[in-house]
């Protein structure tokens, strides 16, 4: 067997871009000469190995949520490719895409909003089977009851007939997870799956996802702004800022050897549940600029404590710096040295 083929990544993202036109008022539309775009995702490249729990980390405006949607083609790209086992999902027609969706599913952030309030739980989960004509009515019901049991909603018969508003937030999220796995997908995008769950219940949901990943050999894209969760869950991490990936690598590399000033700032910013460890923070000045007019050159340069002349001129490329560690910066690793951390 050709080693190269065996090593090819499960999912490959190539130069992915998504620009959203800015909604303008009537007068502005007439008077303005050019349309402005929100550059939500502005040319990103990464690969996801089969079986990975790939963390996509960023703050608001980073483009992480849009990236998740693009990978499932829930939104059409402005440019770029997403190869799923060498098949570019953007070249599939409507019907092919529909069938392809069986292999890729999503877990949303808001468990209440992602469930149809007028559909019973059994139907919420089972509808996917119906849509793809899988099994008889009896077999489908059995499969749904199985899934309910598997995601911890027991006794499954009781939950089958209920409506979403009769369930708690944590239970609803389990339903969402159930819906995502019933088609036995290969790839799951989890968009901030525990952000709206109570703190003490998060661990269970996260562990559930990990169990299911092992059991069904799933590959995850885990989108979050919470670095502590990313560290707990993921084995590969990509840090996004203003539509670009600024640093990417294995969990150990990112958390133990952060190279990009933004990554370092993020890591130092997180409050630690230990009163004896007072955080030593690197706080970039100002706030995240608008994705309509991102800064020239390196997008982080206006806020970066160590930016020099090169930084505003040309955007740095994502370059390998260590084993399984890439960074887009002209001064990687310097911030830690300079600030003696």
């Amino acid at each position, binding site marked *: 067997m050709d080693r190269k083929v065996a090593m090819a990544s499960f999912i490959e993202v190539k130069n992915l871009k998504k620009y959203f036109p800015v909604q303008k008022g009537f007068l502005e539309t007439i008077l303005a000469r050019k349309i402005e775009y929100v550059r939500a995702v502005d040319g990103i490249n990464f690969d996801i190995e089969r079986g990975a729990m790939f963390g996509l980390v960023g*703050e*608001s405006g980073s483009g992480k949520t849009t990236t998740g949607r693009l990978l499932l083609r829930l939104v059409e790209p402005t440019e770029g490719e997403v190869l799923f086992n060498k098949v570019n999902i953007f070249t599939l027609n409507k019907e092919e895409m529909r069938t392809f969706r069986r292999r890729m599913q999503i877990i949303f952030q808001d468990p209440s909003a992602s469930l149809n309030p007028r559909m019973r739980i059994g139907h919420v989960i089972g509808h996917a089977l119906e849509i793809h004509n899988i099994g008889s009515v009896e077999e489908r019901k059995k499969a749904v009851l199985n899934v309910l049991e598997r995601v911890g909603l027991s006794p499954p018969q009781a939950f089958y007939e209920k409506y979403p508003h009769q369930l*708690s*937030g*944590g239970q609803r999220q389990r339903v969402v997870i159930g819906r995502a796995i019933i088609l036995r997908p290969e790839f799951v995008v989890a968009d901030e799956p525990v952000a709206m769950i*109570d*703190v*003490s*219940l*998060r*661990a*269970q949901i*996260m*562990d559930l996802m990990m169990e299911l990943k092992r059991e069904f050999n799933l590959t995850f894209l885990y989108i979050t*702004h*919470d*670095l*502590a*969760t990313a*560290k*707990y869950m993921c084995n590969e991490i990509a840090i996004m800022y203003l539509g670009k990936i600024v640093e990417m690598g294995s969990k*150990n590399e990112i*958390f*133990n050897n952060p190279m990009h000033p933004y990554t370092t*700032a*993020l*890591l*130092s*910013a*997180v*409050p*630690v*549940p*230990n*009163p*004896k*460890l*007072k*955080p030593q*923070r690197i*706080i*970039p000045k100002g*706030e*995240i600029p608008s994705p309509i007019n991102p800064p020239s050159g390196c997008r982080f340069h206006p806020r970066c404590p160590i930016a020099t002349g090169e930084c505003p001129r040309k955007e740095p490329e994502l370059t390998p710096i260590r084993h399984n560690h890439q960074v887009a910066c002209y001064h990687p690793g310097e911030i830690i040295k300079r600030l003696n951390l």
Partner: protein
Amino acid sequence: MSIPEAILEVKGLQTHYYTRAGVVKAVDNISFVIDKGETLGLVGESGSGKSTLGFSIIRLVPPPGKIVGGKIIFAGTDLMKSKEEEMREIRGKRVSMIFQDPMTSLNPLMKIGDHLTETITTHLKIKKDEALEKAKALLDKLGISPERINDYPHQFSGGMRQRVVIGLALALNPDLVIADEPTTSLDVIIEAQILELLKKLKADYNLTLILITHNIGVVAEMADHIAVMYAGKIVELSDASSLFDNPLHPYTKALLESVPNIRLSEQTLKWILGMPPDLLSLPKGCRFNSRCPHAFKKCFETEPELMQISKNRFVACYLHG
């Protein structure tokens, strides 16, 4: 070191919500003391009653909620006995509140400067120009350029707006500030900025702060004392170090063990089985009994009282007396 003086003493506070489905005892017999200059962290999850407690202290509980019992002794006066006009005097000037969502706590039609000057002139009998000067000085302290005094809220980002909200709360140098999830809706780095700002202002103004949050990391960083709330009651009240070193209440212990810590390389998170109780039909005995790995017979019979274990440590659990 100065002798701590109590600025707020809450005794047996009861706040109930009279809903269509029944009475929800959101705050059920809560008592605690806060000293001047102290930061009390109020930690709990949804349904714990922490926000309701915050609103109760300032007597702004929205209907169908109502404070039905207890005392709120603020600087010697029982606020429960104060008339509404007296409360209006106190709110904003002596006790102020920082709400969670900076998007909705500011009036989109009012300039930032007007927000500040209005608060100032409502309570202080000074001229508008003087108030404006004070407002500009405040913006500077908050890290906002004073030239932006005539801007509208929508021209500011989320983090900046939250700074303005903090500014409004501090404009009159209140004796007590209640912050309800002040950083929950903010990005990580902005959250860090706000926390650092709060720490600075705390030191500069010798603020007494009640910090309501579900974020264990935030409370570890900011609070001197921590009260852990569960289903309307305080289950543990302790100084921050002791709480994290040696949590006494099983809920506290489980909560701390369920939160990911970014400083640890390998972690196993523990679960708390079951779900928070339905506040409309509370179990007999300790409210945590069905989820507690150490529960025994007595836990299902009578509710444990908050008892003092040592100086600065209180817990409501039969495992500890």
